[in-house]
């Protein structure tokens, strides 16, 4: 018993520290979500030749705050026929998995809640738990659209989980580590997007599908399943799903930056930056700069996500699943194979780039052909009809 007291004291300090840092993470992520909501409204508005929010504060900056207040004040309806326990637990599971992922995502060398040696594996493990929340949400609402949406989300998210994990494995092979800080350090010279562009494309597309952003928002498609798993949710409960979706989008963008765009490392080495007025050599200044650089990269990726939302129409569910299993999964396996060959034979780096670009172009062309097939067929039929008409006219003239 004598050894227990100091142990408990250490434990208590640790626990308090843990709670404080978790709260800090929660606050930071909430601010990020507010900024994302504003950015999305503004970007979408501009893409659709509108102004976006302008009335609330400067440039409509307070619009997300107004949205949040509206959501929280809204009546929270729990349908009578719903399975109350599951209805309550589902948003909690979704939000928990969204926040748990951020525990190990570093914003810079020193700014990470808990760096894990198996960081990437941890992230994939907890991302899967989120799917469970969606399925349960659909089931718990006792709504046919809800159940359909839940099943859709399970099918979609499990299918797109495979390419995400496989590409992560390829990156882990390149860096010889699953520790996100080591992976970023390994990209000091060449970011992995130059080595494995295929990996980044697959990860980004499958990541979009994982968080249900627009070309892939099948499971909560308003025109098909009227909101899917969220159909019966309103007010604060619904806003938890909303929060989790935006946090997950941010996580995917952050992972794209960490795994492929070099994280917080600068594109130039110190010698090339020597002409700049030298900064005071304080640790936190450098840290702050790299956090800002990291965030800039992440927001650039996020902007592409919003841009895609403003540009592409929604896929059909059969197209979605076919794309996952016929294009994404084979491509991700191809990424592992070429990475393995490259590492085993110790070829020069450009061979990996060439191999992955070849795969990307070939599969891209096949997908393009498939997409254009209906149009091609229509053109064929029209040509045949025109030929028949011409033939008939010719024979009539002959007789």
């Amino acid at each position, binding site marked *: 018993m004598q050894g227990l007291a100091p*142990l*408990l004291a250490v*434990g208590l300090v640790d626990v308090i520290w843990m709670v404080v840092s978790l709260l800090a993470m929660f606050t930071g992520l909430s601010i990020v979500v507010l900024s994302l909501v504003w950015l999305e409204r503004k970007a979408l508005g501009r893409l659709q030749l509108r102004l976006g929010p302008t009335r609330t504060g400067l440039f409509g900056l307070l619009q997300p705050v107004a949205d949040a207040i509206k959501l929280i004040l809204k009546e929270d309806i729990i349908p009578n026929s719903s*399975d109350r*326990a*599951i209805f309550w*637990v589902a948003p909690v599971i979704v939000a928990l998995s969204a926040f748990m992922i951020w525990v190990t995502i570093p914003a810079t060398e020193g700014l990470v809640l808990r760096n*894990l*040696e*198996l960081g990437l*594996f*941890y992230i*994939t*493990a*907890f991302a*899967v*738990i989120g*799917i*469970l929340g969606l*399925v*349960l949400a659909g*089931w718990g609402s006792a709504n046919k659209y809800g*159940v359909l949406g*839940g*099943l859709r989300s*399970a099918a979609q998210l*499990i299918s797109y989980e495979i390419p995400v994990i496989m590409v992560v494995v390829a990156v882990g092979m390149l860096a010889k580590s*699953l520790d996100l800080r080591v992976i970023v350090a390994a990209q000091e010279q060449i970011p992995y997007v130059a080595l494995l562009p295929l990996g980044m494309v697959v990860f980004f597309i499958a990541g979009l599908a994982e968080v249900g952003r627009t070309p892939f928002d099948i499971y909560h498609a308003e025109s098909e399943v009227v909101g899917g798993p969220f159909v019966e949710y309103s007010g604060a409960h619904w806003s938890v799903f909303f929060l989790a979706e935006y946090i997950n989008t941010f996580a995917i963008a952050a992972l794209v930056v960490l795994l492929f765009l070099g994280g917080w490392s600068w594109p130039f080495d110190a010698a090339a930056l020597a002409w700049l007025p030298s900064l005071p050599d304080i640790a936190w200044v450098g840290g702050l700069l790299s956090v800002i650089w990291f965030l800039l990269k992440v927001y650039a990726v996020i902007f592409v996500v919003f841009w895609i939302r403003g540009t592409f129409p929604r896929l059909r569910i059969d197209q979605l699943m076919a794309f996952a299993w016929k294009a994404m999964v084979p491509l991700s396996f191809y990424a592992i194979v070429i990475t393995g060959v490259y590492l085993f034979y110790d070829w020069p780096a450009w061979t990996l780039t060439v191999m992955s670009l070849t795969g990307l172009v070939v599969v891209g062309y096949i997908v393009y052909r498939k997409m254009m097939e209906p149009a091609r067929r229509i053109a064929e039929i029209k040509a045949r009809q025109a030929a028949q008409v011409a033939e008939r006219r010719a024979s009539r003239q002959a007789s």
Partner: protein
Amino acid sequence: MSWFLFIILAFFTLAGGLGVVVTRNVVHAALFLLVSLVAVAGLYLILFAEFLALVQVLIYGGAIIIVLLFAIMLTRTAEYPYISDNKQWPLAAVAAAAVGVVLGAAFLDSNIPETSPNSPAFADLANSLFTTWAIPFEVASLVLLVALIGAIIIARTGEDNR
């Protein structure tokens, strides 16, 4: 501290297991199973088996429970969600007791080394898994493949009869 954690996690493991058996609602049973499995992952963490804990969360907490829910929702349990036992329960109880006895005997009989924070690194684990134990590993994946094919065959024969 670790004793305290162990007691909490053990409680959740057992309570989850009990909930699976006792609850009348199949979906609730799946949720209880989730609680139990995640608590087991926590137990692995206490034993410094980080990798095993994450695998437990990924495979059991994520994949297996999702597939279970999928099966529950795709079959017609929606129309009768409250049928969760049948007349075979004494047999099941006997089987469970037998497994319990075997596990208990094995536990009493074996000499379990104490774990330390310096658990084997992830790389060592991978090395032994893919060199020393490569064949069992491959056989395990073959078993999964056989199960997959079996499921497809069962589903297809049902289609022919219709």
